[in-house]
């Protein structure tokens, strides 16, 4: 893994976070690290329906957060507010020091630094895998095409599908498409990666190949917020697990105590239901 790491340009501070993580148990001990995302008193309504209620969340650089909860609990909505796919109506969201407002410049600036992986991959079907990966670097980062392609190939190698570079997404399996989607986000060299149920639309045998890529990414020190029901993943890589229900954060804890000793009744019920089989 380290030889692969050397090929990959990763910002120095992320590397440090990575090293830090090695001697780090499950508990988030790097308190001193700088704040990457901060949600303060965030509220959101769809019409009269109150989807997000007083959300307060701070994510530090290099931290890995897993968000779980029943469907309709607002977990996807919450992470979609972080890159303004959804607009929040009250509260403050700060991403990498920039506050999200209606200012389009701010929004586009934040989106450059925040990668997102969707449940349904959302690859662009009219472009090849390579073109999917180079589109944003070329048009948003103004990178020369050749350089963008080199970087894209590097990330495609990292998600282990460089041989599919010239195929169209429609020719790939779900797991391969999701790995392309991850590579596509990484090509923008993001500061944070948001995962919105990345394995929920996959066949069981493809879930592992995607989780492996995500675990590797986590070990490299990427700041991640991941909405998922993969509790094994949460145990392995999360610094904190957040349980949401009814638009609120019900419980927030390190994975060990979260799974072994949940405090709230709703958390207990939820865990008993998803871990029972």
């Amino acid at each position, binding site marked *: 893994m380290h030889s692969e790491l050397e090929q990959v340009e990763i910002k120095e501070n992320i590397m440090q976070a990575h090293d830090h993580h090695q001697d780090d148990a499950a508990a988030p001990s790097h308190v001193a690290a700088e704040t990457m995302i901060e949600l303060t008193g965030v509220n959101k309504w769809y019409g009269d329906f109150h989807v997000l209620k007083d959300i307060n969340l701070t994510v530090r650089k290099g931290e890995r957060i897993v968000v779980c909860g029943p469907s309709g609990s607002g977990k996807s909505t919450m992470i979609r507010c972080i890159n303004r796919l959804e607009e929040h109506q009250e509260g403050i969201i700060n991403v990498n020091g920039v506050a999200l407002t209606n200012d389009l410049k701010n929004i586009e600036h934040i*989106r450059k630094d925040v990668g997102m992986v969707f449940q349904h991959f959302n690859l662009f079907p009219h472009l090849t895998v390579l073109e999917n990966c180079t589109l*944003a670097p070329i048009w948003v980062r103004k990178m020369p095409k050749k350089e963008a392609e080199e970087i894209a190939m590097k990330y495609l190698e990292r998600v282990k599908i460089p041989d599919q570079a010239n195929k169209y997404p429609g020719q790939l399996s779900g797991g391969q498409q999701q790995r392309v989607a991850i590579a596509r986000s990484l090509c923008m060299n993001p500061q944070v990666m948001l995962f919105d149920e990345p394995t929920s639309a996959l066949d069981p045998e493809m879930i592992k190949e995607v989780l492996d890529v995500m675990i590797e990414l986590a070990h490299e020190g990427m700041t991640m917020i991941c909405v998922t029901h993969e509790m094994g993943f949460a145990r392995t890589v999360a610094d904190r697990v957040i349980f949401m229900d009814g638009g609120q954060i019900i419980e927030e804890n390190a994975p060990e105590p979260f799974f072994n000793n949940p405090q709230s009744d709703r958390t207990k019920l939820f865990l008993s239901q998803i871990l029972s089989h």
Partner: protein
Amino acid sequence: MIVNDKTIPSRPAPAANRGVIGWLRENLFATPGNSVLTLIGIAFLLWAIPPILQWAVLEADLFGSDKNACTSEGACWVFVSARFQQFIYGFYPDAELWRVNIFFAEMTAVLVWVLWDKMPKRMWGGIWFLTGFPATSFMLLYGGAFGLEVVDTHKWGGLMLTLVISLVGMVIALPVGILLALGRRSQMPAISSFCTVFIEVWRGLPLITILFMASVMLPLFVPGDIELDKLIRAMIGISLFEAALIAEVIRGGLQAMPKGQYEAADAMGLSYWKGMRLVIMPQVLKISIPGIVNTFVQLFKDTSLVLIIGLFDLLAVMQAGIADVNWPNIAIEAFVFTGFVFWLFCFGMSRYSLSLERKLDTGHKN
């Protein structure tokens, strides 16, 4: 317990399912009902085709210069050859016909350049098609520069006029239609209501009304010293009418796009216009090809309506020919030929669109 570790080799399908016999069996004689329909169909073709063939080809007169050359029972195609110049050029002066020919040649060349994917530098072809080609065509056809004599638009006619109106209509309607469709879905109330009203008004009016208004009413509202050519007025009317139709076709395509495509484009930081240009529109145009081509085919045929405001397109020239006392009883030949020419162009467009759909198919069905 069953354990099967032998792989069964693939065998060819039974002979009855393969080859000509298999095809016939599957497609023509699958059931007794199908067999009866097949036989009825064959009987109808045997009954209908020979007389048509006899009239149109076997007993037709092809050579000569006037009605007297038509002596046999069949079609009198002499009419077509005698009137050929008018069908193609309208009343364009004899001495200047070479200009129209150059226009035809340039049109063919630039269309092949733009539409055929094996041509080099098609980007430049597209740019020339939208800039240089209209400019040189106007120069050639209208004249007034480089020592070219001015040929007034009322002398334009025939196939040339049909093509000019159609091309201008298509080239204007597509981009305007795309903007209207985007505008109609805009979050900004002023833009979306303007586009909605524009589309609904133009789409709701019959093209004939629009042409009448362009030729009769518009001059009443425009101050006297500004005189807009009748052809230009008709072109503007047709283009905007078509743009409204295209806008709705494009809007249908936009509705069909999965929300995730917009979100993925947004999430990677593409601005609205970049997202539209690079992600959404290429896909929307692809799924809208049948609708767009349908509208274009309709536009091509609808250009014949300009005859009611006194422009002599292909059909109008034909009708004038039918009224000629020297050519009695020629209506059938005239209409069959005109219909055939229109059909040829429309069929060409339709075939091209099919091949384009196949070429752009990347195996992804949402």
